[in-house]
C-alpha cells in the first residue's frame, strides 16, 4: 500500500512539474514576431555551479523544406538548457472533409505498443520530418550560442 502512495506521489509531482514547464513555455512564446528575435529570459535563472550550454531565451529555427512541406521549430532555453521545442510549422498528411461510408467490419486486434529489442534491417516511419526538425533545431541552437 505504501508503495502505491509513493508511486502516486511521484507521478503527481512529475505531472505538476510538466504542467508548470508547459505554462512557462507558453508564456515565453508570447511576443515573438520576427525570425531570430532573441527574447530576454522570461524567468531569470541564477545559475549556481553548473553552467548551461546556451543563453536563456526563445530562438526561432530556420524554415526547412522537407519536400512535403515546411518544418520550423522554436527552442526555449531556460537555465542554459533546452526546456521545450515547439513546432511552428510541420507537414501533415492531406485531409479532406469527405466522410467514408460506415461499413460492417470485423473487430480488429489491438495491443499497447512497446519498444522492442529485436534487430531489424530497415525502419519504416517518417524520417523526412526528423531531418527537417534536426536542421531547424540546429539553426535555433546556433542562435542561442
Amino acid at each position, binding site marked *: 500500500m505504501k508503495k502505491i502512495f509513493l508511486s502516486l506521489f511521484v507521478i503527481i509531482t512529475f505531472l505538476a512539474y510538466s504542467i508548470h514547464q508547459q505554462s512557462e513555455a507558453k508564456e515565453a512564446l508570447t511576443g515573438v514576431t520576427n525570425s531570430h528575435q532573441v527574447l530576454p529570459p522570461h524567468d531569470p535563472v541564477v545559475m549556481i555551479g553548473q553552467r548551461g550550454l546556451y543563453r536563456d531565451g526563445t530562438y526561432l529555427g530556420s524554415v526547412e523544406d522537407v519536400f512535403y512541406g515546411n518544418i520550423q521549430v522554436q527552442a526555449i532555453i531556460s537555465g542554459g538548457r533546452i526546456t521545450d521545442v515547439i513546432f511552428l510549422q510541420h507537414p501533415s498528411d492531406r485531409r*479532406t472533409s469527405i466522410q467514408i461510408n460506415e461499413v460492417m467490419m470485423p473487430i*480488429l486486434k*489491438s495491443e499497447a505498443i512497446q519498444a522492442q529489442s529485436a534487430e531489424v*534491417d*530497415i*525502419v519504416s516511419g517518417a524520417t523526412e*520530418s*526528423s531531418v527537417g526538425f534536426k536542421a531547424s533545431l540546429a539553426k535555433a541552437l546556433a542562435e542561442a550560442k
Partner: protein
Amino acid sequence: MKKIQLIMGMPITIQIKDPQAKSSDFKAIFAFFRQIDRQFSPYKKSSEVSKINRKEIIPAQYSVEMHEILAMAEKTKRETRGYFDVYREGYLDPSGIVKGYAILKAVELLKSRGLTNFYIDAGGDVQVSGTNEGKKWRIGIRHPFEHEKTVKTLSVTTEGVATSGTYLRGEHIYDPTQKAKSIIDIVSMTVIGPTILQADLMATAAFAMGKKGIQFIEATSGLEGYMIDKDGVATFTTGLTTYA
C-alpha cells in the same frame, strides 16, 4: 553494399546484397531520384509541376511520367472515395504519389541491371526485393514517440511497406493557425502492399481518414495495416500476423 544520400529533403538508402553490385548501380538510382525531384517538386520553380500550376504547359505537353502519375492519382482518388487527392485549391501537388512512384521505378531500374537482392528506403517508405542473405528482410515500424526505437517487426520478400504519420506527440504540436486543435487521433499508419506505390498511397489516404483508416485497409484486399493512436495503442488488420 549500402549507400545513403539526402534527396528531396529525406535520406534515401539503397542496400544491395548481390555480390556483383557496382557503385554505378547506386549512382544511377540516386541520379534518378534527383531527376524526379527536379521534375515533380512543387517547390522548385522550374519543375513540370510548377509549370502546370502556372499554366505554362497544356496536357498535350506533359511528360509520359506526368500522365502516368495523374492517371494513377485519379484511380486512387476513386478507390479512396476522395481521401487521396493531388489537387488542393485547384493546384496540382502530386507529392503524395511521387515518392512511391519513384521507389517503384528505381526498383525496376535495379532489376533491369540484373540485381535481385536489395531494398530501397526513401524517407521510411521501403520496397524490398529478394532476400537478405537467404533471410526475409526485417522491417521495423518506428516507435512514434521514441524515434530511435521500433515497435514491431515485419518480415517481407517482395512487398512494399509505407508509414504515414506525424511522429509528434499531440501536446507538442503547436499549429499557429489552429491553436485549439492540437491533438491528433492517430500518430502512425503503416501499410504493407504488393508494391510500395500502393502501400504509400493507401497509407496516406488511411492516415487522413483517422481511426477509420485501419478499417479501410482491412476492407481493401491485398493490404495489411498497423495503426498507432496518440495513446500508444496499436490496432492492426486481421492478416498482419502473416508478416509479424
